[in-house]
């Protein structure tokens, strides 16, 4: 950690970056994102198991951009998001400095985004057995029960859009849910509105989601949104081959293979 703090400080000192995005102490025993602009504040940076928020989300926010070139503390989920954002032309090598944090909480430096991608080859996304089981269970229910299950799960959603705000890949300046010509998604947070909103969000993340679970952690009602993404992640892997954010490999949903297999088109 000290290593990382030193690095951050030197970056600010040299003026290489204008702001360091990292984890700091939050209210009660929680952590929060902090934006350090002064060398002396660098020692506020912390890293431990509580640091689950995906900081990459700030990289696309106008307010942060205005602060100037950032350095960002990046454990694996953040690294993945960064590569995906770069793949979607939202970041470039010049636009930021990445202070990687290894699973062993050590500083990892990268000379390029490409280097991050190859680093991620050793740290592939793996969907926890536990979740695979849960998804299996849900799928094993009769269709109508499954439907009721989700209607019920989504019932508490009151469209606070925390999931969207926490998601590094939800960087659209105008979300479809806000477009009203036509009104794709009913605004109200009733059953239909909730269902359609979450189906749409899941689809928009299909093939892009890096499984950081930020949406789930952000949801005040604890709706298991991450299950939708994980399931789609599985499907994408199953049908279109191994998945992982990549700078040059075309996104699995905006590309195709003439020999894609399916069983349901007659």
């Amino acid at each position, binding site marked *: 950690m000290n290593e990382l703090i030193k690095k951050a400080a030197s970056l600010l000192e040299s003026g290489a970056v204008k702001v360091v995005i990292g984890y700091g102490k939050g209210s009660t025993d929680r952590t929060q994102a902090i934006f350090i602009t002064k060398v002396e504040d660098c020692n506020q940076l912390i890293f431990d198991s509580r640091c689950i928020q995906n900081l990459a989300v700030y990289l696309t926010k106008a307010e942060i951009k205005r602060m100037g070139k950032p350095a960002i503390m990046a454990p694996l989920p953040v690294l993945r998001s960064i590569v995906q954002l770069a793949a*979607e*032309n*939202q970041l470039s090598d010049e636009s930021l400095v990445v202070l990687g944090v290894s699973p062993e909480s050590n500083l990892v430096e990268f000379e390029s985004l490409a280097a991050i991608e190859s680093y991620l080859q050793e740290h592939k996304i793996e969907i926890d057995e536990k979740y695979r089981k849960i998804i299996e269970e849900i799928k094993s229910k009769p269709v109508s029960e499954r439907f009721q299950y989700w209607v019920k799960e989504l019932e508490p959603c009151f469209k606070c859009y925390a999931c969207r705000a926490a998601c590094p890949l939800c*960087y*659209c*300046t*105008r*979300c*479809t849910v806000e*477009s009203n*010509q*036509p009104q*794709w998604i009913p605004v109200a947070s009733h059953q239909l509105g909730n269902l359609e909103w979450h189906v749409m969000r899941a689809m*928009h993340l299909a093939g892009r989601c890096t499984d950081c679970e930020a949406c789930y952690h952000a949801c005040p009602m604890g709706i298991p949104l991450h299950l939708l993404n994980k399931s789609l992640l599985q499907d994408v892997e199953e049908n279109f081959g191994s998945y992982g954010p990549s700078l040059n490999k*075309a*996104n699995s*949903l*905006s*590309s195709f293979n003439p020999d894609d297999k399916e069983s349901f088109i007659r």
Partner: protein
Amino acid sequence: MSKIGVFICHCGENISATVDVEKVAEAAGKLEGVEFSTDYKYMCSDPGQTIIKQMIKEKGLTGVVVAACSPRMHEPTFRKACAEAGMNQYMCEMANLREHCSWVHDKSDATTQKAIDIVRTLVEKVKHNKPLQPIKVPITKKALVIGGGIAGIQASLDIANAGHQVILVEKDPSIGGHMSQLSETFPTLDCSQCILTPRMVEVAQHPNITLLTYAELEKLEGSIGSFKATIRKKAKSIDEKLCTGCGLCTTKCPNKKIPSEFNAGLGLRTAIYVPFPQAVPNKPVIDKENCTYYQKGKCKLCEKTCPTGAIRFDQEDELVEIQVGAVVAATGFNVMKTSEFPEYGYGKYKDVITGLQFERLASASGPTLGEIRRPSDGKIPEKIVFLACAGSRDPAKGKPYCSKICCMYTAKHAMLYQHKVHGGQSYVFYMDIRAAGKNYDEFTRRAIVEDEVNYIRGRVSKIYEENGKLIVKGVDTLLNAKPVEIEADMVVLASAGVANPGSEELAQKMHISYDAYNFFAEAHPKLKPVETNTAGIFLAGACQAPKDIPETVSQASGAAAKVAILFSQDELSRDPAIAVVNRCAPPLFSTCVGCFMCATACPYQAIGEELITDRQGNVIKRVAKVNPGLCQGCGTCVAFCRSKSIDIDGYTNEQMYSEVMALLNND
């Protein structure tokens, strides 16, 4: 507030027989935003169209729905009518009440209700239609012709004579194609080369034609009016400017035992060669696979003998990019090889040859100087058997189609044989004699009656060798189906015409479709025989299906005419149904966030980027931009865009959305 006119067509009885059109008109009249609705016997008729025009003027209609046949049938008609009445033509939509309703359902309330639903759906769509202007695309008035056979030659000459530039690409060292290999031509028996070579020379000398021989299409991008073609000019290993075509090198080349393609394998050629004496251009190329120098690293005899020092061993393939407005595919065909006939000996019998090989034997420029001598021992065959339909019309061979030319050239072959070998006996096994064409049947008659060719109606099950003779086992279905065996000295298979090897890949390069046998597919079997389903690419000759010379030439001229018609305009107006990236007020400028996933999804590389800058020229935003020239309007990008920032005119999100809503809310 939209004022829409709805016009229900009876189509004579075709719609009104099962749909209660008055009821539909009445229901339509009640729809919100509908100003006027009526029904009429024939909307497409002049009086019908007049009603529409009058109403547009009288009622000041802002949109029109014509409920009649399929838009694929009459959309242009009615849009034109609307335009003539001063309404933007794209404010007119058609509701398909005939193909999709009246013809497929029995008379019933449900059928009428469905008709009403369809009309309501289109009314809702039209409410969201925007006036559009057709897109203008400039036309590059230069044509690419692929293939230098008679089809390509004819097409090139016609286009060139219409005053347009032509680039003629031929994969072989010389143009001429199969026609240059033929001996005489039916039904006139005039010498093929005598009529062809003048055309070849004309091509070479024509100021408007650029001839690229020993070259192939590498890549074709863009669309009608502005294609970008990449041509691979294979290394000829000679400097064409210096080469005088004296041919000394070919006499000195030590490698003389290469089967000659021009002589269909019956003659030999050298490694540095001119395919045939009348070749155009009449300059040699080095066939690297068979050249001693390229294979073993030493020899260079040709270089030593060349008086002008034109040999270039270091020459490499060259890729040239050219802009063209139209493409004519004239890549021709090929014939099945004898080795493809197990029952006729897998090609192991030297004296079982294909019709194309017989052409070379009968040709004065051929390996036997026109004498019919059999390949095995050079003897003159006293008894010869011709097999019409060798492979053709034979599902077992995967060629259920008729190759069309075999009946005629087989009759010709038999005639030539009878004329050249006096006292020789010739037999023709046939399924049917298909001699449809001017003076064709007379021609086959002549073979039978005057030249006494023995026609046997039946097929041949087997050919085998027994003491120096080829035993042809067949059946005579007219002589109460008796098996017949003929001891022949030589057998000629009128083997099926097949697509050229590689035609599949070529079709994919050009994005045109091809049939189950890899022949290129025309856009419509009857009404668009020279067009392909890719605008701006046309077909000429046997690459579309086996054809004889006259048919090939006429199709080539047809294709040339299509090109000339296209080139008669300076710009092309295209349906404006294309994608657009939205724009909105600052600071957003556009809801596009520039993820460019649409770009990777676009089949036409039509999506590029646009930098939105402030007055000082600082980049504020990087967004996607659709190139209207390239966009073909598939809308794949629209369904992709997460922020709904890209939309497609004519099928906008609002239009499709309201159609779904309208279709389902019929209560």
